Structure formats: C-alpha cells, structure tokens
C-alpha cells in the first residue's frame, strides 16, 4: 500500500487539452504528461513540447511573472501560465489551455495582440513640466508617486483586456482602448510632472464611457493593480468634471470670452 502511494506521488500523470491550429481555426488536442511538485502550467506545456509536440507554439520569456508573455485561458480562466501552479487547479480531469479569446488566434496558444501596440501609440505621450532645479531635475515626494507606481507595475500581459466584456463579447476594439490603456492613461494623467490633458481623448477617442465598472479586469490582474477603483473611476471623474459639469462649462465659456 505504501508502495502504491509512493508510485502515485512520483509518477503522477495529468492530461492537458490544448488548442492546436492556426488563424483559420483549431481543435482541442489531449496530451498526457508527468507532473511533479511545484510545477506550473507552463512547465507542463514545455514538457509536452519536448516530449510529443515540438511545434506546439506558446509565448514565454521570464517564467517568473515579470514579462507578461504567457497569458492564456486555463480551464477558461485568464491567467499567466508561468504563475499558475498545477496544485492550485484540478488535474484529475483534463486541464484545458487556450489562447486569450479577446484577440484573434495566431497559432496554438498564441494570440494576435498587435492591436494593443497600436492603441498605445494613440495616447498622448508624457509631457513633463519644466525641471524644478537648475541641474534639470525634478522633486517629487514618495507619497505623490505611490499611485502612479502602482499603475506602472503593469507587465502588459493583456489579461485585463482579455476579460473585459466590452472587448471580449462586444468587440469594441475600434472604439474602446480597454483597461490596460486606461491604466496607462491614468499613470500619465496622475504623474506629478505631467502637464498634458487627455480627458477629451479619453471621452471621445478612447471610449472610457464604455466601461461599466464590472471590475473583472481588477480580478485577473497578476500584479494586483486595482484597475477599476484606482485608475478608471478617477479618470471617469476627471472626464465628468471637465466635460459634463454645467458650472465648469459656464466658467469655461466665460473665460474663453
């Protein structure tokens, strides 16, 4: 009996059902591989690559949750493959691994995320106030940058984009920049040195109004950025203050004259 337990522990196998196929379409293919202590989903994918599917495509780089390359949907849940331990998911049944669904599939586990790189270019770049000191440097207090530093933790894994229903279910990619780029815009808008104004862009071009604060993005963020509460809601408030507040509008009108 003891021996049986030993065998079970040392040579446990699990089945992974992985999407295979190109842009035209794909199918789920089952692979069985041995799993051991501390393994993450990405380890299993690599093992399958080395053992039985050398042309199985997946993105990865750091394998430590720092680069945001290996985003996928594991049993339907958007996660980083490198940070998802096998002992946190049920491996008694086949584990499904699919590419992010909010973007077109390229091949196997790879999604075409190029849209995100185009979106970023459209957001007005950082524009600092003149330096505070003669040597060309600035002074900022740590307390004034804590929030911006939270946003700058983003590793651009695009899991928040993947889970956002405006993109995932309603395909509003042309009208809405998604949570990642609202966080990016917030990091710029709340940067103590930045003097650019992006509220009009956010309202019209970037479609901030589409976000109806379901907070799904905050839940999947591997960096635990409080996307909705700390980034999107304050941005929405800025937009409202500047563009929908009747008193502010009146003041603006008078000032213009």
């Amino acid at each position, binding site marked *: 009996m003891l021996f049986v337990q030993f065998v079970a522990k040392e040579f446990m196998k699990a089945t992974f059902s992985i999407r295979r196929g190109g842009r035209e379409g794909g199918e789920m293919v089952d692979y069985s591989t041995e799993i051991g202590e*501390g393994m993450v989903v990405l380890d299993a994918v690599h093992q399958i690559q080395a053992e039985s599917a*050398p042309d199985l495509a997946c993105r990865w780089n750091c394998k430590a949750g720092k680069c945001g390359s290996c985003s996928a949907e594991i049993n339907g849940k958007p996660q980083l493959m490198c940070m998802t331990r096998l002992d946190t998911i049920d491996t008694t049944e086949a584990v499904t691994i699919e590419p992010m669904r909010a973007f077109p599939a390229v091949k196997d586990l790879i999604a075409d995320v190029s849209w995100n790189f185009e979106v970023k270019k459209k957001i007005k770049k950082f524009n600092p106030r003149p330096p505070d000191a003669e040597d060309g440097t600035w002074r900022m207090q740590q307390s004034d940058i804590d929030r911006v530093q939270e946003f700058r933790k983003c590793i651009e894994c695009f899991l928040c984009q993947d889970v956002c229903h405006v993109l995932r279910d309603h395909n509003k990619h042309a009208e809405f920049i998604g949570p990642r780029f609202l966080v990016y815009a917030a990091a710029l808008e709340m940067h103590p040195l930045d003097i650019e104004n992006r509220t009009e862009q956010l309202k019209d071009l970037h479609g901030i109004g589409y976000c109806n604060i379901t907070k799904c993005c905050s839940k999947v963020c591997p960096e635990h950025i409080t996307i909705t509460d700390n980034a999107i809601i304050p941005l929405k408030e800025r937009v409202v203050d500047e563009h929908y507040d009747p008193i502010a509008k009146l003041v603006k009108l008078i000032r213009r004259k």
Partner: protein
Amino acid sequence: MADYPTFEHDVLVIGAGGAGLRAAIEASTNGVSVGLVCKSLLGKAHTVMAEGGMAAALGNVDDRDNWKVHFSDTMRGGQYINNWRMAELHAKEAPDRVRELEAWGAVFDRTTDGKILQRNFGGHRYPRLAHVGDRTGLELIRTLQDHGVHQGIEVYMEVTVVSLLKDGDRVVGCVAYEREHGRFRIFKCKALILATGGVGRAFKITSNSWEGTGDGHALAYDAGAELIDMEFVQFHPTGMVWPPSVRGILVTEGVRGEGGVLKNSEGERFMFNDIPANYKDQTASDAEEGWRYTQGDKSANRPPELLTRDHVARCINREVKAGRGSPHGGVYLDIAWIKERLPNSVEHIKKKLPSMYHQFIQLANLDITTTPMEVGPTTHYIMGGIRVDAVTQASTVPGLFAAGECAAGINGANRLGGNSLSDLIVFGKRAGEYAAQFAKENGAGTIDDDQVKDHVLAALEPFEREGGENPYTIQHDLQEMMQKNVGIVRHHDEMIEALNGLDILRNRAARAFSPGNVDFNPGWHTALDLHNLLIVSEAITRAALERKESRGGQFRDDFPEKDPEFAKFNFSLKKGDSGAMEISRTPIAEMPAELRQVIEEMG
C-alpha cells in the same frame, strides 16, 4: 531576391531590451531611419527581469559619491582587466542617462527631499542604485518603449535574425524570419547594432529566459568579429532552488541590500569567514555594523553578503559542498530576521521587495517576511562578448556595432550588480549615435543574393532531416554538459571533456529534425538556436581553458590563485580562415596616469 521582402533602414538595431531601445532612440534622434528587430513582443526582453536598480553616482543619498568612486569600484570589481575607458565613460555618463529617463517619464523611488532614491548593492561603496522597488528593469524598458514608439522607429516584433549579410568586409544587413509564418525577410542597412543580450541558455541552471541564446555573439562571430573575455560568466549567488521547476529564477541582490543575511544549515553567517584581502577595509567587522550599513549609517562598512557576486557565489558553493547546505542544495537567505530590528518589518519587506514577496508566495508557497528562502548560484550574465571601441561601440567589423550584454569590456572579470542597467543606457546611446554617424558617412552597400540563398537554405535544413534527433534533447544535453564541465568551479580535464562533448553535440545538431511546418514552430526555432549556443559554449570553454588562473567570474580548481601575468591581456576569439575558432591574447592598453591616480586615491 524577389522571393523575400526587403526592408531598408539607415540603422538596424537587433534586440529591443534596454540597450537596443536606447540605441534606436538615439539613432532616430540623430535623424536617420531606424528599424528595430526583436525576437519577442516589444517590452518583453530580458531587461524586465532586472530587479535591483541602475548604478549611477548621483550622490543623492551619500554626497561622497562621484564618478571617480564609481569608476574605481567598477575596476576593482572587474579585477582590473576591464576596458578602463569604458568604465570611465560609464561612471561619468550614467547620472545623465538616469536623469534623462526621469524626463521621459520614469518614476523612481524618492528620497525624503524628493530626489531619486539610491540603494546599496554589492561592490558599490556608497548607495548608488536608482531603483523602483525591485522592478527597476521593467521601469527602464517601459520608459524607453513608451518614449520610443513616438520616435518614428519601425519595430519588427517576433522576428529572428539567422545571419548577417556582408558586402566585402562590411556588414550591410541581415536575413531573418518572422516567427508567425516562418517567412524570410531581408533587412538592408548602412549600420547594424547588435543588442541581443546574453547566453544563459547555454547552462542548465540560469536566470535567463529562452531568448538568452547568444545570438548576437554568434552573429558577430560568424561575420568575422572578435569576441573577448568569454571565460567570464557571472553566476549570480542567489537563484531560487526549490521547487525544481523554478530552479535558477533570480532572487535580487536587493534582498541583501535591505539587510538580508546568508546562513548555512548550522545557522552560521558564513560570509564572515572569507573576506578577500582587497575588500577587507571596506567590509563590516561584525553583524551589528553590517546592519547599520544597510540602514544608511555612513560610518559603517558593508556586510560581507554585499561582496562581489563571484565571491559570494563561490562561498555558497563551498558551504553546499561541505555538507552545510539547505535541504534542496542551497543555503538560507534570511530577510525575515529584520523583525528583530524593525517593528513594521512585514510591511517594510513587502514595500521594498514586492516582486520577491510575490514570487516566493506564488511559486514556492513561502512567505519571505516570516521564513528564510533557499537560494543557490544561477547563471546570470556574461561579461564577455563582442569586442567594441569604448567611445563608438564599433566592433572590429565595419558597419557592425554592439551594446549591452552582448558587447564586452566594461565589466572585466566580474560585473557589479546595477552596472548592467546603466551600461545599457550609456552605451546604447553611444552605439546609436555612432551608428547613425557611420550611416550618414557611408552609402548603402549591396546585398549579395547568393549569401541570402545560402542562409535561407541552411535555415530550412531541420525540416529535411526526417528521422533526425529532437532539438530539445540536444539543447538539454548541451546545458547539462556545460553546467557540469564549465560551471562555477572549473578544471582543465573537465573542460577538455567539454570540448569533446561540444564536437559530439555539433554533429548531433547537424542532424536535428523539426517536424511540422515553418508556422510558429518552437521546435524549429530551437534547432536554429543550437548553432548560436554551440558557438558561445565553445568560446567560453576555450577562453576558460587558456586562462590558467582564478579571477572574477572564472574560478579554476587547478589554478586557484590570481596570476598577475593574466592581468595584462584579454583573450580574443575569432573565426579563423579554416572556420575553426582561434584564440589570441589582446594586450590591455596602459591606463592613463590620471585614471591610475583615481584608483590610488580611492584605495
């Protein structure tokens, strides 16, 4: 040539980590058209893994710091075989490059008077590393990326270069394939900058991502450029050792900078047992003084945990070999102990080392605020690389430049932590500037169709070797072999075994078979990477064999002492006319009197 689309730029940069991005920005600022080719998506390069910070003598935390101290620290760390001119330029220019990042939107941690905060790191006499918690590399790459996308740089993501193209002696472009569909592309340029990073994937235990396959080293070597200092591989003392799947992942030196201590299984703080003579007067005499140093006491010397990486890695290795290691073959790194000193230690650790906290909780089920970590050496960085001119970053081949980890010179026999990120921006900028100048002064060369055809045919061979070997197995065996024979402790006999092993592996690689087609096929990519890994592995082994002494990153069991004779030159490796690797000695130029004086003054 009609078969392959051609893209033309004045300057082509290969690699989009810190050095590549900084070079591309600079070249573009100099008014030339710039293409940037990278194997991964933009912003994913290995630079994101850098944690601790970037070294620059800003003097914000300790006003005794200046370029001279930084220069002499770098030379001391590199055991005086560095390119002293590079070390000088680096120390002088790093502060401006860091301030420039702030002007581009980087948000560094702050001092109480609102300046950029600096932290302690191994081998740096004063707190010198500008940082953002323990994710400084991410901040660097994101700042450069977000600035760069508005500069009109053309970025080619997920494109891998297979070979450089030459017109006579000069590099005039490259052949590459885009990963998605495996289609070949020709890039034509007037100047080409390699910024491809390191070679960590030549070893089994490494902190490097899949990308660290020595591409730039091999591309340059195949194009006739010289590599130097290849024997100097940095084994970072603290990589994770458990669970097996995360073995090698980096644990930042910042843990020790914040007061973390190393202990063996007997609970002994063993780093106090072996302090090198040339660091004795800079090292704390007891635990109390070491702690005061980490807390900013300017009268205190640094704890021995913050000695240079080569030394700390060897001490850990020795403890493990002597049977005083942790259960999984490492030693203990304890930051939790600071609860004895700081009432709010848990919050303090989470604030100062958020990624580390996160990494251990998630991957090892371990809370670093309460429990010591298990750590051991991991292949981290290569000091060696393409030989470049200190000022221009030009290689020994016209039209070919290099910057960052794939270039060599600044670090000598051992790199100080934090000097890498500043190296990227100092010499990335220089490479961009001088490559742009070269492009302006030289017309376009001619692409030779036959060269293109040969490279493409060679790259497609793995599909035709039906019945050949699995490339993953060959890569795995190469890594095992290098780890065992040319790792942290080296010996003549083992390295001869390695050279023989490399011959066998080269033959096996020539039979590597990739099933499937050219569409995003990692098996094929792995088969092609083998060529590069084999070149860098051979270069490391040949240079290590010739250097019959121990210095910095190179430790020889059969020659455990430093030999002043070997301080007079660098080993250069070059492809000979026969195609075989040739090694020679390049004398180190004499240091000018004023720099010698700086070193003497700084002690």
